[in-house]
């Protein structure tokens, strides 16, 4: 078996609510993610899906447990540093892009993800042909709007841009946090199809949270069911093929 690209060992994370109450969310997660895995993640609200992503990305630090990236302990590594190998797309199209910068400027920012940024003139014009080619892959006209301010884009285009930004420098791990949930069904389907194609073509390792059981079954080579802060089921590609949506619901019953 290949070595895991990311490993979580008995990770426990608590979250502070608005009224200052400390609530345990992740209650001992064990997970080995292998290169090329495309894992879909389902779970009820409060199961800990977003907290899992925040813990992997470093915006939340676990109270106990260990995270390893390529065998190296990253439990205490800062969120900024982890962006060297983690790309992330948020659910809210507004989260992942800078509205008052142009599409091309956003992409240029993303090419420096996790790298040091110097007082060196940005090379926007020189990058435009490359950006045009990349944007065309998203199949929604983004390539014609490179010089548009992002606030002028549709939600679908904005989310497509977020996806491009997260993958323009190949990340070791791509986190997709319900990245199509805020879009209309047609746009959502298109973005999911492109996502799937890109992950396969570029051999990305990805985790995707979704609320749609159909999507969870249709995409990816592995499926995780989170429940009450733990991995309730870790379903392989083979098992997944024979599963139906109704089978998935049974995991949510007590």
């Amino acid at each position, binding site marked *: 078996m290949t070595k895991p690209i990311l490993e979580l060992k008995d990770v426990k994370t608590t979250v502070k609510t608005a009224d200052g109450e400390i609530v345990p969310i992740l209650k001992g997660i064990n997970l080995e993610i292998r290169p090329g895995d495309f894992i879909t993640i389902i779970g009820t609200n409060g199961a800990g899906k977003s907290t899992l992503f925040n813990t992997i*990305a470093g*915006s939340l630090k676990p109270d106990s447990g260990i995270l390893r990236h390529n065998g190296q302990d990253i439990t205490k590594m800062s*969120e*900024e*540093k982890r*962006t*060297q190998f983690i790309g*992330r797309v*948020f659910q809210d199209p*507004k*989260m*992942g*892009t*800078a*509205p*008052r*910068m142009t599409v091309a*400027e956003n992409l*240029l*920012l*993303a090419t*420096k*993800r*996790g*790298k040091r*940024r*110097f*007082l*060196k*003139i*940005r090379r926007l014009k020189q990058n435009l042909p490359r950006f045009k080619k990349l944007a065309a892959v998203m199949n929604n006209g983004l390539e014609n709007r490179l010089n548009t301010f992002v606030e002028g884009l549709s939600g679908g285009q904005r989310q497509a841009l977020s996806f491009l*930004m997260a993958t323009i420098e190949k990340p070791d791990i791509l986190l997709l946090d319900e990245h199509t949930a805020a879009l209309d069904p047609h746009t959502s389907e298109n973005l999911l199809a492109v996502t799937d194609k890109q992950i396969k073509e570029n051999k990305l390792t990805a985790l995707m949270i979704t609320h749609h059981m159909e999507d969870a079954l249709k995409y990816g080579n592995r499926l995780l069911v989170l429940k009450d802060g733990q991995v309730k089921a870790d379903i392989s590609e083979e098992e997944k093929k024979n599963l139906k949506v109704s089978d998935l619901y049974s995991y949510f019953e007590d």
Partner: protein
Amino acid sequence: MNLIVSAIGQGLLWALLGLGLYLTFRILNFADMTVEGTFPLGAAVAVANISQGMSPYLATFLALLAGMAAGLVTGLLYTKGKIPILLAGILTMTAIYSINLRIMGGSNISLIGKKTLLNNEFLEKLPQYFNSVVLGIVVVIVITGILIFFLNTDFGQAFIATGDNPSMAKSLGIHTDFMVIIGLMLSNGIVALCGALIAQNNGYADINMGIGTIVIALASIIIGEVAFGELTLNQRLVAVTLGSIIYRLILLAVLQLGFSANDLNLISSIVLALCMMLPQLEKVLHLKKPVERGVKKHD
């Protein structure tokens, strides 16, 4: 004529205030009250040192450094101390008041008979008030140039992204706290430089000269935006200077109407409030359509 030249000179020198505040108000997206303290701080540092016989160049440079230090304090209070930015700025501003009194040893110092940046041999030869115009143009071009360069680097783009969407900036590995601190230091450095130049132009520094600083700075920014509309970022920076000059000309006109210099803060606030309410007024009064109809050909 002299009055207009003087107003343009003032507008150019005061433009630095708008340029400094632009970094925080428009790019980082918050109002930094520190500037009300750093403006007189720059004046105090420059004037106190010049009156002790220091070269005006060095004294002005020290003023800039003092402003950056003040920005650093606000930045640390905000990012590391987790104090809301408005309060962090007010705290630093209030603290600087005492420091200014210490530096000046009183509530004002005069520069009479001292060499300043505005009365060197070359500038002395120019007609009256042209010294401030020439110095203003040079300084504005240098600072605007530096800012345009800065904002067009990889580092500067990360700075802009920090203000535009901090959570995205973080997810791209940008150290947003560091960017905010750098922004506050740059901004307050420029504002202190402005204070140093204005004090040398006036021939004195006064403990109360900072009152209304932020309103004047915002007026330059907003008048520039209202007057010139949709612009690129580089053009916007230039518009700040033009806005500052327009603002000085408005004040000149108001003074000509018979108001006294004591009324200036009231007038400044009214001008700024009107400019900021323009979009609302436009909605209520429907000014645009009749004006457009007025200038368009009848068809």
